[in-house]
């Protein structure tokens, strides 16, 4: 019994001592959803931040990527961290509207972020205020197999008509002109985004995803008419294929083109492709003269409304937004910095091409499932998948989407 008592005393003493030690260093709790490689990159950045602010200790709680999407709803209201990862655009709207994210417009104003992060500002703004800070984004476009192009004797197209003409030649060579794997639905949303951006332009696309235009509009039908042109040349059975399996088709030379995000480069290279065999191409022009807009999904950090250490959290946001930090971070992530003062690795042709494509773009969209509200995105992507397999059902599909639009955007 006495032993137990002394043990308890020692424990209390230890607790009190650690308590006093924490009084000097302030903690910053950070909930994130990094995969292993980005996690290492972020740990390096956090170490830099702690070196610059020796009195702050950042505690990173890393979640599984998919599980995080559900977990965030619980921890924001139950046990709020000081910082949390999320996404830009409409994806953050539910949290902003429910008052779960803190307005950080002052961080933007104090650090001149409106100018440095100009390209991402619109997607961080709701009701004229900024609700977080972007730290990375990546381009979407067409990745192609150069060997397959050579074997079919085809030039890289500059227009959509040229692309379709090539498709006929690929088909004659027994190669799928366009591959995709729509089992998880989102890969085909990229195809729709680009077809609509190129056919009708950025403003129309944003109006459509914001629910201001009817899905039965003739302009939407025009987009699907362009899509119908490439359907005979698209990989069969894509509805049963994951996006990684479709990437394998491109690597093996069974497919020529793949509309994808830059993160897929890692998969292509793991499959054995190199900078000499893998090519990147900005999605070709459809309607001549339209200003070119691109898809660039942005990853962001926010301060939850229930944060305890708001001052240091704002310091961290300003730190992550800085050009030199974003250069270092994105070099490790293999993605593009959102700060226009940052630089990218010139030796990586895909990053350089992406940086060039995005910084010269007229405007940036987030991606269909981030621009449109979650529910609309899901119903929309199911409609795209159905259209790709049963193009003759287009009218029924559009009517269904229009019915959902009436309900979702009230």
């Amino acid at each position, binding site marked *: 019994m006495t032993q137990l008592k002394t043990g308890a005393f020692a424990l209390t003493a230890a607790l009190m001592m650690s308590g006093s030690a924490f009084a000097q260093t302030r903690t910053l709790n950070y909930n994130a959803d990094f995969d292993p490689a980005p996690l290492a990159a972020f740990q390096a950045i956090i170490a830099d931040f702690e070196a610059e602010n020796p009195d702050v200790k950042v505690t990173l709680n890393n979640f599984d990527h998919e599980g995080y999407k559900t977990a965030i709803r619980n921890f924001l209201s139950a046990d709020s961290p000081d910082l949390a990862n999320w996404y830009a655009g409409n994806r953050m709207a539910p949290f902003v509207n429910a008052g779960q994210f803190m307005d950080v417009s002052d961080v933007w104003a104090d650090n001149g972020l409106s100018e440095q992060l100009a390209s991402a500002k619109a997607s961080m703004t709701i009701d004229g205020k900024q609700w977080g800070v972007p730290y990375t984004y990546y381009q979407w476009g067409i990745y192609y197999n150069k060997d397959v192009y050579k074997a079919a004797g085809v030039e890289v197209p500059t227009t959509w008509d040229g692309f379709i003409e090539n498709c006929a030649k690929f088909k004659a060579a027994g190669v799928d002109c366009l591959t995709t794997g729509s089992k998880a639905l989102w890969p085909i949303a990229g195809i729709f985004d680009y077809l609509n951006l190129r056919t009708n332009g950025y403003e129309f696309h944003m109006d459509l995803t914001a629910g201001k235009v009817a899905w039965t509009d003739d302009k939407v039908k025009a987009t699907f008419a362009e899509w119908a042109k490439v359907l005979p040349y698209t990989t069969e059975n894509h509805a*049963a294929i994951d996006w990684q399996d479709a990437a394998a088709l491109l690597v093996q030379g069974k497919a020529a083109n793949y509309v994808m995000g830059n993160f897929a480069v890692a998969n292509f290279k793991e499959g054995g492709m190199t900078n000499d065999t893998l090519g990147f191409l900005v999605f070709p022009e459809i309607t001549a003269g339209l200003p070119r807009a691109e898809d660039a999904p942005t990853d962001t950090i926010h301060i939850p409304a229930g944060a305890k250490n708001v001052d240091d959290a704002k310091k961290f946001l300003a730190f992550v937004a800085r050009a030199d930090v974003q250069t270092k971070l994105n070099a490790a992530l293999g993605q593009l910095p959102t700060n226009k003062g940052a630089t990218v690795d010139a030796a990586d042709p895909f990053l350089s091409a992406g940086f060039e494509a995005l910084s010269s773009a007229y405007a940036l969209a987030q991606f269909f499932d981030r621009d449109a509200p979650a529910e609309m995105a899901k119903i929309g992507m199911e409609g795209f998948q159905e259209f790709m397999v049963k193009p003759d059902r287009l009218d029924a599909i559009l009517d269904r989407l229009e019915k959902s639009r009436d309900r979702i955007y009230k």
Partner: protein
Amino acid sequence: MTSYWKRNQLRLAPWLFLAPGAAMFLVYVIIPIFQSLSLSFYDWDGLGDATYIGTANYVELLDDEAFYTSLKNNVIWLALYLLAVPAGLFIAIFLNQTVRGIRIYKSLFFFPFVISQVVVGLMFSWFYAPNFGLFYKLIEWLTGDGIAILADEKYVTYGIIVAGLWPQIAYVMILYITGLNNIAPDQVEAARLDGAKGWKMLWHVILPQLRPATFIAVVVTVIGALRSFDLVSIMTDGGPWGSSRVLSFYMYEQALSEYGFRMGYGAAIAVVLFAIMMVFISGFIWKMWRDETER
């Protein structure tokens, strides 16, 4: 106090023993049922305030194609899943013989039930996978043109049910094997002396003695069919374009998935599913009650 306890001990003791279980049942089953019921009258995204919207969720359900697809698939599941009962019986009778090493065969047949449903789902997805799946190759070899079962709205539900039947048949089989062990040998002997064999023996002597096993087999199969979720989630995620959804999966999609968070609508689907299950469950309970009181 003690005298009260002494007097009523016999009456109170069962309730005291029941209390822990009953409390759990109340907290985790009964109360949530009523919470779901009340939630189904609200519009709530799980974050903000819930607004009372009356029966609007149910009205919307009536006009929701996806709901009818799920309902239809549930009916198909229920009908085809019951095939596990005769199939399990057949295998059990087949294995009910004394051959060298029969225990090994029995455990091999039981094996699919031991594997997790997730693994079953993955195995069957590869089996059906276009371009390299065994089944796809087989169909291609037979007809010259492969069918990607999981990408075709006409076949996808059947493809998943076949995957579900595999472990379910094993389960039913083990129920019948234990049932067959308990068959009275003297009755079989007597029937044999009277000249019964084959179908007659099965129908008039064996099956009546297997009634308890049949009852349990039907109950677990019906409930299993109605709550089918894991295989749909693993193999197709409800696709292609939602054509393989079942009610439980649709409820999950609406209320809890990445694109959902319509708690009220999900709750309304759950209530409908609960109502359907209730029809069967009350049927089973009624039968059990009748059997017990008859004795």
